């Protein structure tokens, strides 16, 4: 019974902190119980020590350092400060909006890239067979022939057909090249020819062009091909000139053949 009473009194002493706040029953118990009296005395002394610890003061430059710190934060991170002041919901919304914008941009670029690829693949213009162009070099100055092997085999070239023959392969080839580059195939090759080149044998040439003549004083200037992708990017390819050995030989000999064949080959 006494132990039970001491336990309650000790709990009251520990909660009270000092003997001055004890109840009358606890105080009367302390007069009879030496153990509880010791506990109460220790508790009072401990309370006195704790309350006598005093206050540790802030340093004299506390305000100055605090102002400097706040000013530095204002200077350095105006955006981060305002962003940090936002509530969690607003911050989440802002982050979600930024992510949405980035995703939309990526999606737009991807869709645009796919559209270009589809245009390059599904070219509606049917590839036309390449007809050998009429070269003025083939036709001599006095020639009345058109230079075709068989005029009946050739389609009648309207202006539209000529335009298609002239531009379509180049445009589709260019689109394929652009699509290849967009797909990351920077070094991919492309085949410009739709049909094989026409082969003209010597006999056919003699039969077709009986009076064909080539001017021997034709320009030796190299052929230049300019390619433009209609986006402002152009490239000029210089093809080396081809000279025939007999041409030079004939021009240097003084045979009657040369005299008769002067200026023509």
């Amino acid at each position: 019974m006494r132990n039970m009473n001491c336990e309650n009194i000790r709990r009251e002493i520990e909660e009270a902190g000092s003997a001055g706040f004890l109840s009358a029953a606890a105080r009367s118990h302390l007069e009879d119980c030496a153990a509880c009296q010791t506990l109460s005395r220790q508790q009072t002394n401990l309370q006195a020590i704790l309350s006598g610890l005093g206050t540790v003061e802030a340093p004299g430059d506390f305000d100055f350092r605090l102002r400097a710190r706040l000013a530095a934060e204002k200077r350095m991170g105006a955006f981060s400060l305002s962003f940090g002041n936002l509530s969690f919901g607003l911050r989440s919304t802002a982050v979600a909006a930024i992510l949405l914008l980035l995703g939309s941009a990526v999606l737009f670029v991807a869709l645009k890239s796919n559209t270009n690829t589809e245009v390059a693949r599904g070219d509606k213009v049917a590839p036309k067979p390449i007809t050998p162009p009429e070269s003025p070099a083939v036709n001599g100055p006095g020639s009345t022939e058109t230079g075709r092997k068989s005029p009946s085999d050739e389609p009648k070239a309207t202006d539209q057909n000529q335009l298609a023959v002239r531009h379509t392969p180049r445009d589709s080839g260019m689109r394929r090249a652009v699509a290849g580059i967009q797909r990351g195939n920077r070094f991919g090759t492309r085949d410009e020819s739709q049909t094989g080149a026409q082969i003209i044998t010597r006999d056919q040439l003699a039969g077709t062009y009986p009076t064909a003549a080539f001017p021997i004083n034709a320009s030796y200037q190299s052929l230049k091909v300019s390619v433009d992708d209609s986006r402002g990017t152009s490239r000029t390819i210089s093809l080396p000139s081809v000279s025939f050995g007999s041409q030079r030989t004939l021009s240097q000999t003084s045979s009657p053949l040369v005299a008769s064949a002067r200026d023509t080959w």
Partner: protein
Amino acid sequence: MDTLTTIDVNFSAALRHEVVADPTSDHALLEATRTGDEDAFAELVGRYRNPITNYIYRMTSDYDGAVDLAQETFVRVYRAADRYQTTYAFSTYIYRIATNLAISELRKRKRRKLVSLTGFFQARDGGEPQEFNPPDLKPLPDTELVDAERRNAVQRAICTLPEKYRAPLILRDVEGKSYEDISRILGTSEGTIKSRISRARGFLREKMTAYL
């Protein structure tokens, strides 16, 4: 194993205190700070810099660190001035911020395992081993020296307490806060606070027997 919990600074709207119309009250000063009045904030700093520094120092036993954390406390008050709600007393609000910072610092120290090689004192309830320097029992000639040694001893003994006992003991016996204020600052019920303070006193009494 004691677990530390960071206290949520957002107060519930259960107990609303009316904002005192006194322009020198803490609420009025913070309201003025919100509108850009730097002098009002300086007045707030002047009122609380010493108590907050002292409280954090008693929690961490590191003066320089306590000053830094006290400054961080005021920086957070300044940043959150727009979001401050006059639900509780400003002192409760700022002590709660300081408590969170001090607990975070103690956690960092635990992670870094900053313990002295002079000795360990195992906590009674199975907590982390705590450093404790036993008191020098030789008689000292000067009473002032005895008091100084006693204060140092009690400060060291406080640092051996688990954090969940340390904060309420300091707030009650050193800072002189009421149980109601302590329960608001720490976000715990008054019964729990009383129990923890009682246990903390018991720990200290055992460790300080030579001085009591």
